[in-house]
């Protein structure tokens, strides 16, 4: 079956004073119906740019320089403005990171969800409101009949994110992009939102691109993972494989940074220091041909310093990695 979303060799660059600066290089991934693809990486590695490129919402100075994005048979990059408006909110939709600012403060949540239905489904005002109440119930907002008339400032962060999800799923899109949907929320609410997303995905068969740095969420929700570093995909595979057998030193570093809680009596080992990856993501424009992770890598050897970054090497059916020494690191 053809994937819902197919991104091939996507490159994005930013207009710089000394010519274009690459932001995203040769990213490829497919997402099938009902599946979740997670994009993982530190801030500034190109996760959000990927999402915005798919939605064709890149900021002014950013352009897609090569590659293709095909959504359900339609070439997104070639879509005319009118076609694009028909796709957005209808076939593909997006949940933003900050539920506090992603809703228009001047309109009721019912108006805002209803607006999407009125535009794409040509529903009457009354029908749209009725549907909206159903959607609010579906995202488990209590007293939906009353909340439909609430303004965003009257709802909590978790509630607002639920409203955003309802809005995003109102037209049953083929693809949902969730850009760090829980970063701004309490830990307990985060779990609820992830549960809700996976439950709704089961019902709607929506493909999800999940952008996150929460590896717990990846393990729980995602079928596949792509780990991005400095605009390059450095490891890709099924989430099970990548989490259980991380091959790239960067992925391993990310995993080591996740704190683990220990229950029971304190042992000597319980107070271990949390690991960190030394150094910083190289800034835009300072990325050469060699492995972008090289300056921070504890495994770096001569081959890494003398050769450009290798392309993704398919290790087996479930994993691919871009590292010269992955066989020594994770045999």
């Amino acid at each position: 079956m053809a994937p819902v979303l197919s991104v091939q060799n996507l490159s994005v660059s930013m207009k710089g004073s000394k010519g274009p600066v690459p932001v995203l290089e040769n990213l490829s991934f497919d997402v099938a119906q009902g599946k979740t693809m997670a994009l993982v990486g530190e801030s500034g590695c190109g996760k959000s740019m990927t999402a915005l490129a798919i939605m064709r919402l890149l900021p002014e100075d950013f352009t897609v320089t090569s590659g293709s994005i095909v959504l359900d048979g339609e070439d997104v990059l070639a879509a005319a403005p009118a076609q694009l408006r028909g796709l957005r909110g209808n076939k593909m939709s997006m949940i933003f990171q900050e539920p506090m600012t992603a809703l228009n403060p001047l309109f009721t949540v019912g108006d805002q969800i209803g607006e999407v239905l009125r535009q794409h489904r040509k529903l009457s005002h009354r029908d749209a409101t009725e549907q909206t109440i159903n959607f609010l119930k579906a995202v488990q907002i209590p007293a939906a009949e009353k909340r439909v008339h609430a303004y965003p400032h009257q709802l909590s962060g978790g509630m607002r994110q639920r409203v955003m999800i309802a809005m995003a799923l109102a037209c049953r899109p083929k693809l949902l992009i969730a850009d760090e949907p829980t970063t701004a929320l309490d830990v307990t609410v985060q779990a609820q939102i992830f549960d809700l997303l996976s439950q709704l995905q089961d019902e709607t068969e929506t493909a999800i691109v999940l952008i996150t740095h929460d590896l717990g969420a990846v393990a729980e929700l995602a079928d596949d993972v792509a780990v991005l570093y400095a605009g390059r995909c450095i490891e890709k595979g099924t989430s099970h494989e990548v989490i259980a057998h991380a091959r790239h030193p960067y992925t391993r570093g990310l995993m080591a940074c996740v704190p683990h809680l220990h229950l029971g009596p304190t042992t000597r080992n319980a107070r271990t220091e949390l690991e960190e990856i030394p150094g910083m993501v190289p800034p835009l424009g300072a990325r050469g041909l060699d492995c972008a992770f090289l300056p921070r890598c504890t495994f770096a050897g001569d081959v890494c310093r003398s050769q450009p970054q290798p392309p993704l090497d398919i290790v087996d059916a479930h994993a691919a990695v871009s590292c010269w020494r992955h066989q020594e690191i994770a045999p």
Partner: protein
Amino acid sequence: MTTIDTPLTTTVNDAAPLPARPTISPAFAALRQFGRSPAGVVGAIVLLILILVTIFGPQFYSIDPLDLVGAPFTPPGEDAWLGTDYLGRDILAGLIYGGRATLTVGGVAAVITILIGVTIGSLAGFFGGAIDTALTKITEFFQILPPLLFAMVLVTLFGQTLTTITIAIGVVSWPTAARLTRAEFLRLRNLDFVKASRAAGAGNGHLILRVVLPNALPPIIVSATLAIGVAILFEGGLSFLGLGDPNTMSWGLMIGQNRNYVLDAWWTVMFPGAAIFIAVLAISLVGDGINDAINPRLRKRG
């Protein structure tokens, strides 16, 4: 794909108690806040009285403002409550009838100011880039023209009628509104909810009119209110310089025609001047009240 198959089956939590406070719209909240500002309320009441007098006054005070009712320069008293002017016309009648023209000129000129300013400012701020550069240049061109001189030229060229004067005032005053609107649009267009709206399939027209503009309205409303006051002063200024509409009684015209006699017959200029002063002051107070009411930093949550 057009059928909608709801509901998505899910378990709904037991209804949590909603806050007892009913849902109020931002407009209503602003109105309530406006009521708490004494200056604004006083201004609104004074303005309302002025408007009512100019609308219904002629029914109770039936002297025609252009009729010669007595000797020129009759001081205020029994014969004419507020005196007569250099031709012997009744000053009170002039105030009542002239208020209509003055307030209408002020209101309509402010509408023209805001319409041109908001259109240009919103297009410039929303689209940015070359459109912004071009529109900003046009705005700046209009802004460097001395407004009073420019308005005088327009009125001289196109005739001393109230319509020309109104349009001239609107045409010379819009750059401020355009710059204000542009700044608001620049601030708002990159906010998340605008992006989210675009991501939900909204087109530019919808984004400008239904998403960004409503959020940019507070300062625009305030500036519109103040624009009325400025336009009234402008009309007074033009009339004072002899460029008023001689066929329509207005406060400005009264001052302009009697200005040579101000030292001998103070009432001919004093009363229309006071009327303009009070009207502009009331409008400013209302503008301040609205500003306080819709400025989110001053408004209490909820």
